[in-house]
């Protein structure tokens, strides 16, 4: 084994040597060939110069070819696709064949032409009619121009509603390109066509709605109508897109803001008045309920008391009856004295009038207050 290895090593060494020898040997028959008939030193020098410049040109041409072919490398960013046109004819016949993100190679122009197409990203367009004249900056800063008492149709956009009123409305449409080949090669400016479809849709929708429906009462249905119309147009015009979302914003003319706001104020006033009436209602009904309960409760209590006292009276009567029957006069006198004694301790003013000595009757004058007596009022004899 070691023998073999040694041999092999030796052979390799030999081979290396022979290669070194081969290179100049192989070149030599080429180089001296043109200079085979050497005439003099001058022509020899010319031949040498020609030879070296030919070599330079040759390498330059090789380099040029490499650069030329290398310039055909191109990159496709994520979310985009590429289509290659060879002599103007697409190499990719349908959307599935389009070149995806990554590095690709094609022949440089004029043989091939690479076209990059936005594909997966969400595109967005905004309507250009229907909104008053403003710019994004002015709007963001809140420094919009004062609203005039009329709208110049050349500058300010608006939509006419079904009931002949004027409103401002604008829509933003989000979509993605479903058929990039069509989107790119069938339309000179497809996004512009989408925008016009959106413009048409907001006018179309506004034209069949009442102003209050657009602004407050039926915003969703208005938005749905815009979406339905733009979807229909996109399908009709075969724009090769698929709609993701459509947002619509509508406001009354700015000049009429106060008038429209007063309606909102009226609405909230109406709600307030209504709520007040409802709270009055609940209070009155609660009061009535309480009063009714108080009356029936009092009646119940009185009823119970009446029955009880009558029963008690009856019981007492039955107890006293035998004693009364035993000696009615005495019984009456005893009971009367007892009661009067009790009454007298409670009574505020007691006046005793003894009989005059001459037996004549006394005259007593009482001044009675005409004022209604109050529970704590003073008493005047």
């Amino acid at each position: 084994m070691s023998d073999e290895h040694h041999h092999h090593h030796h052979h390799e060494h030999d081979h290396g040597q022979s290669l070194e020898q081969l290179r100049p040997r192989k070149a030599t028959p080429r180089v001296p060939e043109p200079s085979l008939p050497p005439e003099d030193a001058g022509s020899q020098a010319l031949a040498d110069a020609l030879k070296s410049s030919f070599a330079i040109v040759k390498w330059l041409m090789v380099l040029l070819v490499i650069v030329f072919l290398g310039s055909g490398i191109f990159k496709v960013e994520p979310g985009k696709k590429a289509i290659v046109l060879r002599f103007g004819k697409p190499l990719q016949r349908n959307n599935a064949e389009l070149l995806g993100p990554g590095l690709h190679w094609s022949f440089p122009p004029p043989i091939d032409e690479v076209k990059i197409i936005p594909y997966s990203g969400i595109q967005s367009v905004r309507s250009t009619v229907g909104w008053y004249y403003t710019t994004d900056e002015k709007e963001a800063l809140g420094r919009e121009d004062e609203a005039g008492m009329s709208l110049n149709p050349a500058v300010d956009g608006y939509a006419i509603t079904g009931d002949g009123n004027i409103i401002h409305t604008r829509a933003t449409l989000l979509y993605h390109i479903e058929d990039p080949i069509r989107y790119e090669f069938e339309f000179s400016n497809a996004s512009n066509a989408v925008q016009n479809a959106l413009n048409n849709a907001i006018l179309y929708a506004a034209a069949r709605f009442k102003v209050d429906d657009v602004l407050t009462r039926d915003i969703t249905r208005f938005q749905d109508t815009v979406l339905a119309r733009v979807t229909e147009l996109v399908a009709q015009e075969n724009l090769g897109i698929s709609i993701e979302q459509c947002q619509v914003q509508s406001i009354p003319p700015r000049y009429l803001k106060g008038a429209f706001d007063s309606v909102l104020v009226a609405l909230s006033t109406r709600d307030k008045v209504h709520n007040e009436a409802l709270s009055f209602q609940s209070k009155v009904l609660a009061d009535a309920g309480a009063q009714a309960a108080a009356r029936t409760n009092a009646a119940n209590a009185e009823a119970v008391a009446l029955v009880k006292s009558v029963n008690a009276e009856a019981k007492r009567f039955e107890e006293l009856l035998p004693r009364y029957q035993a000696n009615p006069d005495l019984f009456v006198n005893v009971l009367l004295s007892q009661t009067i004694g009790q009454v007298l301790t409670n009574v505020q003013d007691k006046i005793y009038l003894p009989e005059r000595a001459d037996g004549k009757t006394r005259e007593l004058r009482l001044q009675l207050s005409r004022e209604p007596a109050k529970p704590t009022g003073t008493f005047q004899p």
Partner: protein
Amino acid sequence: MKRNYMTLGIGLLLIFIFIAILCFGQVRQSTVVVITTFGKPTRTLTKPGLFVKWPVPIQWAHVFDQRIQNFDDKLDQAYTADNYTLLTQVYVGWKISDAQAFFPKFEGGSVLEAQKKLEGLLRSAKSAVVGRHPLADFVSTDEKKIKFDQIEHEILKIVQDQVNQKNYGIELQFLGIKKLGFPESVTQEVFKRMTSERQVLSSAILNEGESEASKIRSAANAQSTEIIAKADAEAKIIQGQAQSEAAQSFAVFQQNPELANFLLSLNALELSLRDRATLIFDQHSQPFNLFQGYSTNLANPLLKK
């Protein structure tokens, strides 16, 4: 000899490239090429790819975009059938359908020239169509009255018919209304009307609220009176029941009405003199009859002792 071949090869390649530049052309996807021989259209190439032609002084290649072009016309004023002034602007999607016909009609086959022509056609078509329809066909709250699509189709048809008739080589793909408006002075009138409509609406809302509220209030009052009246009636029934129950006990008093009267009188006396009463007695009334027989309280021998 070898070098001669190489030189020859390079020379031939250069000649080929030169001829290729002169004689070859591309039809790019979505374009059409019209070849003119001494200024006259002779060939129309629609398939994408390479083609061969005679060099420039003999044959020229003219390239036309076949894609759908967007074109918006100007805002034009027209009168509706019921004499409203209406401003309309439309957008059109159009394309060159016959490049060979299109090419000589417009100077150098210019798209801009064609659009200028289209603009004129659109203006007259719009004013004709707007004049045929009342305003309610454009805007209406009645879904059945509105003829938005129909109006667009009518304009499209008029323009397409004229384009066909004159053989412009143009095809209209679609047409839609882009802007619909009133003249500026009319917007001012509309604003005035809208303002007064708002005022009417506001006061209607307020009045509605008030009347609703007073309805609720009076209903509440009526209901409350009813509840109390019902409770009163119930109380009377309860009292009546109690009295009839109490009356059953009255039978007991029948045993001796005299005593019963006496006891009830005593009760009444007690109740009526519970407070704030002034009583005046003489010596005949019990228990002051005890004073009888003594002259006066001043000459009371018992006190004088």
